């Protein structure tokens, strides 16, 4: 496929890929930050590249290579020398430039920046706003035009495998931006694992590749053996390579900074030919672009898989939080419905109110009724302990909500900590091991709203039902309290004869409610109040749970992006 896509289609595709690459990177980078890691910090070369490197590769590849190359197939070729430290990249660069342009050295690693050998206009293009090197920090590039071939930008990259992690990051970035790779390794190094990670990426990226095995043993059959072994390994790894060249050890030129002419002759000739032939350069550029476009698919697929894993992990953690909070909510609702909410004193106060003759007259009969009427005549109706009950409910129930949320948070945090990512996500958020500090206030507020809504329910019902006069003479709030207590104690079947002040209160309260509002209306109001309360408690716990959710990526976004990546691949 030497003929590129038509220009418009190409521009559109690159634009779309650019968008995908940016979004993938920002998603992965955000997640890294949530895990307490700096997404920009260079990774150790001895670690196998992970999601972060892949997302970065795609971004570098699209912005640093596809975009500039798609704009102009005739722009200079970017040729990069990549390889392990001490393999002789600088020495070869010098040989190709014909003078000392990159410092070779005994100390490892020697090169900590990249040396760009390019004619001034080519250099201006490469580092310009639309050039492939635009995003590389200027201080990491040294430019020289000595020995430059017009039309070719030769870049001596730093190593890919030393303890200087920055070097690898720069080499990776340069690799993504180039048309042609000269991979330089040595007879000692050629089976090292780390460089093979890089070679695998070169192959995936569909980049034209030349492999140079430097510092070969002097013996000719040994040399042949090594080269054959290298070729076999490349074949096994399915890495297409234009040519594998050997350069023997000790072939340093006595007079110059590079290798003897003979040793590097074949390399020099190749470069000279390219420099001289504009069409050959264009053909190579077109080939590289085609390879690069084809190479998007495997990378995009891997990133899509990375994102799916990310979404699965997030789902798993989120589900834990949901389960833990749901379980605690069930316990809380059981407590609430079982009447485990009210302190005895509060119940006792209400009991002496509903048990008072002046109140029981609403529902008693016979002699009790006469007595009640008399007492009321003499003493008047007693005030309902509305505030005390309301305060008791807000206090006790709010505490219970806090304790529940606290348990749920601890369970979730505990479960998350069993997972390395979960532990990392929580590392900077120790507060997630407990309920939020303001939960009690929020719970109290919500409970007050709940009581207010019961009161308006009672007022509305009272306005339509026969109990108007009775209800109002007792006060809307007292009516509301009867309903509220009904929610907590309305367990049905409780009779006053059964032991316990709570049961007795529930019984009296039930009678009072029925007398005030009628049985059907009472049931309706209690059901309504109970549902409303359950909703409110659920909302409170949901808000608590969302603190955990916020640490996780939005899986829908992640999955959508993953699907888009698969679609372009």
């Amino acid at each position, binding site marked *: 496929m030497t003929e590129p896509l038509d220009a418009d289609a190409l521009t559109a595709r690159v634009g779309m890929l650019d968008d995908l690459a940016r979004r993938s990177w920002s998603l992965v980078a955000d997640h890294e930050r949530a895990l307490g890691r700096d997404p920009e910090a260079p990774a*150790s*070369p*001895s670690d196998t590249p992970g999601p972060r490197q892949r997302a970065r590769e795609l971004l570098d590849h699209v912005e640093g290579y596809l975009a500039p190359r798609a704009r102009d197939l005739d722009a200079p070729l970017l040729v990069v020398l990549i390889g*392990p*430290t*001490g*393999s002789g990249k600088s020495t070869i660069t010098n040989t190709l430039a014909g003078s000392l342009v990159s410092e070779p050295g*005994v*100390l*490892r690693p020697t090169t900590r920046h990249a040396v760009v050998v390019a004619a001034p206009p080519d250099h201006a293009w490469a580092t310009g706003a639309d050039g492939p090197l635009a995003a590389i920090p200027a201080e990491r590039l040294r430019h020289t035009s000595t020995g430059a071939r017009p039309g070719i930008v030769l870049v001596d990259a730093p190593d890919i*495998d*030393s*303890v*200087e*992690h920055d070097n*690898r990051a720069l080499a990776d970035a340069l690799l993504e931006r180039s048309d042609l790779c000269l991979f330089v390794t040595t*007879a*000692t*190094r*050629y*089976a*090292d*694992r*780390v460089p*093979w990670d890089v070679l695998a990426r070169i192959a995936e990226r569909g980049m034209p590749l030349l492999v140079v095995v430097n*510092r070969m*043993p002097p*013996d000719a059959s040994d040399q042949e*053996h*090594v080269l054959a*072994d290298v070729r076999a*390994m490349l074949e096994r790894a399915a890495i297409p390579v234009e040519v594998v060249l050997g350069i023997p050890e000790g072939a340093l030129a006595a007079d110059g900074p590079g290798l003897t002419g003979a040793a590097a002759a074949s390399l020099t000739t190749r470069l000279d030919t390219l420099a001289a032939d504009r069409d050959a350069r264009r053909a190579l550029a077109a080939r590289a672009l085609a390879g690069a476009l084809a190479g998007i698919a495997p990378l995009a697929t891997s990133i899509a898989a990375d994102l799916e894993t990310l979404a699965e992990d997030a789902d798993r953690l989120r589900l834990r939080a949901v389960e833990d909070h749901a379980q605690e909510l069930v316990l809380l609702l059981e*407590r609430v419905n079982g009447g*485990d909410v009210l*302190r*005895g*004193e509060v119940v*006792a106060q209400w009991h002496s109110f509903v048990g008072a003759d002046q109140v029981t007259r609403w529902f008693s009969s016979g002699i009790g009724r006469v007595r009640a009427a008399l007492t009321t005549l003499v003493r008047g109706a007693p005030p309902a302990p509305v505030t005390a009950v309301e305060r008791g409910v807000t*206090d*006790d129930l709010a*505490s*219970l909500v*806090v*304790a529940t949320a*606290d*348990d749920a948070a*601890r369970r979730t*945090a*505990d479960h998350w*900590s069993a997972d390395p990512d979960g*532990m*990392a996500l*929580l590392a900077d958020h*120790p*507060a997630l*091991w*407990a309920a939020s500090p303001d939960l009690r206030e929020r719970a109290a507020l919500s409970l007050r709203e709940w009581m207010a809504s019961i009161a308006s329910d009672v007022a509305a019902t009272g306005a339509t039902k026969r109990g108007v006069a009775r209800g109002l003479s007792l006060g809307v709030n007292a009516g509301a309290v009867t309903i509220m207590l009904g929610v907590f104690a309305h367990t049905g079947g409780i009779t006053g004869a059964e032991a*316990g*002040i*709570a049961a007795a209160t529930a019984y009296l309260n039930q009678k009072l409610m029925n007398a005030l509002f009628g049985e059907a209306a009472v049931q309706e109001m209690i059901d309504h109040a109970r549902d409303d309360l359950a909703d409110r408690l659920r909302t409170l716990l949901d808000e608590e749970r969302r603190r955990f959710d916020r640490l996780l990526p939005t899986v829908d976004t992640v999955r959508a992006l993953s699907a888009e990546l698969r679609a372009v691949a």
Partner: protein
Amino acid sequence: MTDASGLAAADVLLDRLVRAAEAATTLGLDPIPATEAAAVIRARGGFPGDLYVLALAGGTGVGKSSILNALAGDDLSDTGVQRPTTTHAVAWVPAAHADATGPLLDWLGGATVRLRPAADDAAPDPLAQVVLLDLPDLDSVAAEHAARVDAALPRVDAVAWVSDPEKYADSVLHDRYLARWASRLARQAFVLNKTDRVTSGDLPMLRDDVAARLAQEHLPSMPILPVSAHGDLDALRGWLADGVHARDVVRDRQGRAATAALADLARAAGTDGPLPPEPLLTADRRRAAIDATTAAVLDVVGLTGLRAQAIAATRQAARGQGGGLLARIRGLLDRGTGRPERLADPQGYLLRWRDRGSLVPATLPVRAAIAEGLAALPPAARGAAAATGDSDGLVTRLAAAVDRTVTGPAASAPLPTSRAWPLIGLGQVLATVALITGVAWIVAGFATGSQLPAAAIDLPILGGMPMPALLVLIGILGTWGLSWLLVRHADRLGGRWADRLAADLRTGVADAVDATALGSLGAWDAARRQLWQVARDVPAT
């Protein structure tokens, strides 16, 4: 070092590791680093201690096999241009130890054994105590090679890290191997091979660069041995012959490995500082949490209610002995209703504390305090600390504490009585008699229609007053006054009794909260202190 002290050292290490593993388990940390280190020490103790295994470890092609061959003066291990060459380890064993080393080498992952004949009789043999182990490479595409190295490194006694001018700054060597293993080894050296490939002018520079890098990695004292397998191996020979004893090598290595494992655990627990770890809660914070919890527990127990009950009960008792007729009648009537049982039964009221609410809110102050302390802990140590505030556990322990207190001696003390009450009772009888007499007198007067001799008595202000009326007045005032007196007195006594009991409950609950609610936090604090102690080798106090 003698046998005895060598053995003692291993025992001490094992003891520290075992205690660290215990503490780690309490702290919810993975104890495996400690148990594994202990397992290695135990296993190594079963193999010969009078010789040590020195592994040659490094990247492929740096010349490990060539060095072994050069030392032996023989082709013991394959070398070649093909990378990687060495797949299986080769051990160069002093002939005298041939039999004893077999199991040791098997434990190290197996090796092809090459025997080294005893040196000429006269000269002391510098290698008499060393088994040299040529390992496969640690950096090639052959992952199984690195796996063999990884399996052997925790068990070998000493390591020569072999590298060359090309590979000495490799990430794999430094980031993967030195970073992990150098701190766990006592006898080790950095062998810079192939120095014949650099000019003699460059060599010192190279050496300095290696030294600088090692210093940067906190390994300033690691010897650097520039050698050439194809030439000068003196630096390595000299180091091998520097007179160490195998027993010391083995013991020091175990000491380092154990110390590193302990340090890792200490770091995970956040107890790696020079000072003993602070308890999770400061004394003030702890005090405040206990006070708040105690208050919340007493709120459920219901001290106000208790006081009311105590007063009611005392009143009842007082009325029984010193009440007037009416009071007695009321008492009799009340008896059937169950009211006294409910309202005037302080002990029963205490025992029924569970009916009055849940202890869950009472656990909040303790848990809030613990949660606050978590931020200072490393993430891995937070779970176990947070678990000490586990709601169910706390509630159960608090409930048990309350039960113990409400059934304790203070709560079962008898209700107060007074000797004044029967006297008041006598007064009540007299007053009642006066009342009845007065009323009877008046009734009789009306009935007979005649003027009974109703001697008028001259009172200071009221003037003359008929006797019957006076008796009625005395009766009413007396009954009322004496009842008033009785009730006040009973209230005082009952109130005081309740206050005493409340004070006892308060201290009882506070002590119980301190001892039980924060009990597992105490165990947690102790485990951290223990980990700190064993990691720093501080004798336990």
